[in-house]
């Protein structure tokens, strides 16, 4: 993690304190490298807080990860009991002992067997310890729990002097040691061991709040080194201890500009860039039964189809239940599971506290390294923590996911009460995109309306779309906005039908008008034809009159000429006058 390496560099400039990596998941990050090398570290805490396991893992990891042999001096449990207790974690102590990598020495102090007379010292313990260290060349030593000496031996004055000498002896030997101590009434340890171990003190705590237990770890003091100061939750599971430094200090995450598809094409279209930013966080909120899980499943399905790894955290349903239910909407998640692209992580919210959930989520993510994760639903986590707890957990989770460039989709159940709207608001300020599904109750049925509440960094549609779930998948349909308002579901269907009917009627009406026009045209054309004929006959009539007139006039003119000739007596050659008269 970048911030830790940065801090580490800073630390290296300031101090040259050499450190021994513990190999415990996450602890080396908080301590910026491990425990002080060649010095004793005190681990204290109440009964059952994991002191012995912690120190044993320090020894085992020393051998397996760093090739540093270790000595475990047990004052409480016998070697084979210890070995049995940790086989469930996959530590084979018997074999490691045979290989001379680990030496477990059980020191038994029985008050009933011992009588004290006069002066003594604990050279016997030193000799045993020295012998154990030398015989395997140990670099790490654990004393668990040295306070048991106090119950076996009466002379506290001698014991305290000898303890001081013991720690000096360990320092002289150059071994990195862990001393465990039971938590006292007012002091860190019952016998005040902290006054001898001044270099590094780690406090383990096991708290039960609301019937849910959480293990936490805190570095009380670390002389000569920077370290994380918070309480860090830790988890003991089949792989040992995991401490996760879950509080991030800075807001300097890398951002991506690439786009990731939601798996619902019509939903992608609501965003100007056609999907969500990679590494962003998406919240899908809605009331019960609005299809939040279906959206999440189709998001995961799309990611797996792109050959991206997905991790599905289910807090409500079991994996097989989700797979079965999603096959009813045409999503085959099983094939992705079979290919190893999809993994489910199902846990009841009440299984452990919020912090532990966070640690478990971290672990699962670090192990599987997914590209996409889904948390379904986050609102169920409120059952194990207050609202502010959930929020602070999600802040840290989103932080971690952004750092790893993992896209996350949360689903959140909203009830129609005011309190839960606040829940939305609280979480929504953290997320980059927020899809909201609302019930639209109208016309005696419920339909789903989906809208995009916000998307950081891109434009998005402001329209409410009707969200439909069919057996072929999910789809968004534009809602019908008619004179009576927004229509969805069967009302929308009815409106669509109504419009279709209207279209048919309309086109029919148009056809009739066309034919009418045609007929009119025909009538008119016929009329025009007859008028034309009439006109022709009239014209002919008129022409006939003209010709007759012409002829008449000619005849009259001719006759008049002849009459004139006759009267004057002039002779005119017949061809000059009128040849016709010849």
């Amino acid at each position, binding site marked *: 993690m970048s911030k830790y390496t940065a801090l580490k560099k800073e630390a290296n400039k300031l101090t040259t304190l050499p450190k021994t990596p513990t190999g415990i998941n996450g602890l080396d990050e908080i301590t910026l490298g491990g425990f002080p090398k060649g010095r004793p570290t005190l681990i204290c805490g109440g009964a059952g807080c994991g002191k012995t396991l912690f120190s044993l893992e320090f020894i085992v990891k020393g051998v397996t990860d760093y090739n540093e042999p270790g000595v475990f001096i047990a004052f409480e449990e016998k070697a084979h009991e210890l070995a049995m207790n940790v086989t469930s974690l996959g530590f084979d102590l018997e074999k490691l002992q045979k290989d001379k990598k680990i030496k477990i020495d059980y020191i038994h102090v029985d008050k009933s067997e011992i009588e004290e007379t*006069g002066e003594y010292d604990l050279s*016997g313990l030193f000799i045993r310890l020295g012998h154990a260290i030398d015989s395997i060349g140990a670099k790490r030593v654990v004393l668990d729990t040295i306070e048991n000496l106090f119950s076996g031996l009466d002379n506290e004055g001698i014991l305290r002097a000898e303890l001081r000498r013991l720690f000096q002896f360990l320092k002289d030997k150059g071994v990195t040691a862990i001393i465990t101590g039971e938590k006292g009434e007012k002091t860190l340890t019952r016998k005040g061991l902290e006054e001898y171990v001044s270099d590094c003190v780690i406090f383990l705590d096991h708290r039960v709040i609301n019937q849910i237990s959480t293990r936490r770890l805190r570095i009380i003091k670390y002389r000569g080194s920077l370290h994380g100061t918070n309480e860090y939750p830790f988890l003991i599971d089949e792989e040992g201890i995991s401490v996760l430094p879950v509080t991030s200090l800075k807001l300097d995450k890398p951002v991506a500009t690439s786009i990731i598809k939601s798996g619902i094409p019509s939903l992608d279209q609501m965003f100007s860039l056609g999907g969500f930013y990679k590494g962003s966080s998406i919240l899908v909120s809605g009331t019960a039964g609005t299809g939040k899980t279906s959206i999440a499943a189709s998001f995961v399905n799309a990611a797996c189809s792109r050959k991206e790894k997905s991790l599905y955290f289910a807090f409500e349903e079991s994996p097989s239940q989700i797979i079965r239910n999603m096959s009813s909407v045409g999503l085959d998640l099983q094939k992705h599971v079979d290919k190893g692209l999809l993994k489910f992580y199902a846990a009841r919210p009440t299984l452990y506290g919020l912090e532990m959930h966070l640690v478990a989520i971290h672990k699962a993510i670090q192990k599987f390294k997914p590209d996409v994760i889904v948390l379904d639903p986050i609102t169920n986590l409120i059952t194990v923590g207050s609202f502010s707890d959930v929020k602070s957990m999600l802040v840290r989770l989103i932080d971690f996911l952004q750092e790893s460039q993992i896209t996350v989709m949360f689903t959140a159940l909203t009830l129609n009460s005011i309190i839960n709207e606040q829940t939305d608001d609280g979480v929504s300020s953290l997320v980059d995109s927020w899809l909201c599904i609302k019930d639209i109750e109208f016309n005696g049925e419920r339909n789903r309306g989906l809208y995009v509440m916000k998307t950081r960094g891109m434009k998005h549609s402001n329209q409410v779309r009707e969200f439909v779930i069919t057996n072929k998948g999910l789809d968004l349909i534009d809602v019908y906005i008619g004179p009576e308002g927004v229509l969805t579901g069967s009302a929308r269907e009815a409106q669509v039908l109504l419009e279709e009917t209207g279209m048919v009627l309309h086109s029919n009406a148009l056809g009739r008008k066309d034919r009418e026009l045609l007929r009119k045209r025909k009538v008119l054309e016929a009329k025009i034809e007859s008028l034309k004929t009439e006109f022709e006959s009239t014209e002919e009539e008129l022409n006939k009159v003209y010709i007759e007139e012409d002829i008449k006039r000619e005849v009259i003119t001719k006759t008049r000429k002849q009459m004139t000739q006759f009267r004057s007596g002039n002779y005119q050659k017949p061809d000059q006058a009128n040849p016709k008269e010849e």
Partner: protein
Amino acid sequence: MSKKYELRLYVAGKTLKSTTALSNLKKYCEEHLKGQYVIEVIDLLEHPQLAEGDQILAIPTLVKKVPEPVRKIIGDLSNKEKVLVGLDIRTKD
């Protein structure tokens, strides 16, 4: 008294406490267990591996193996009464 005492005294080098313990032990044994005891002195500096067997922490430690029960007496054995009680030679009053 026919009991046979097997006593082991664990020491670490020739320290003042060790020599005091050994001389005290010899004195008491001569007084109370004449002829019935064997003292074995083990120097852990020479045989550190032997410390584990008898669960030795403190130095000097006197271990009474036989007769049963096993008892350990730590210190320089300067308190005679306690040593004798510890060795079951004398019962506690």
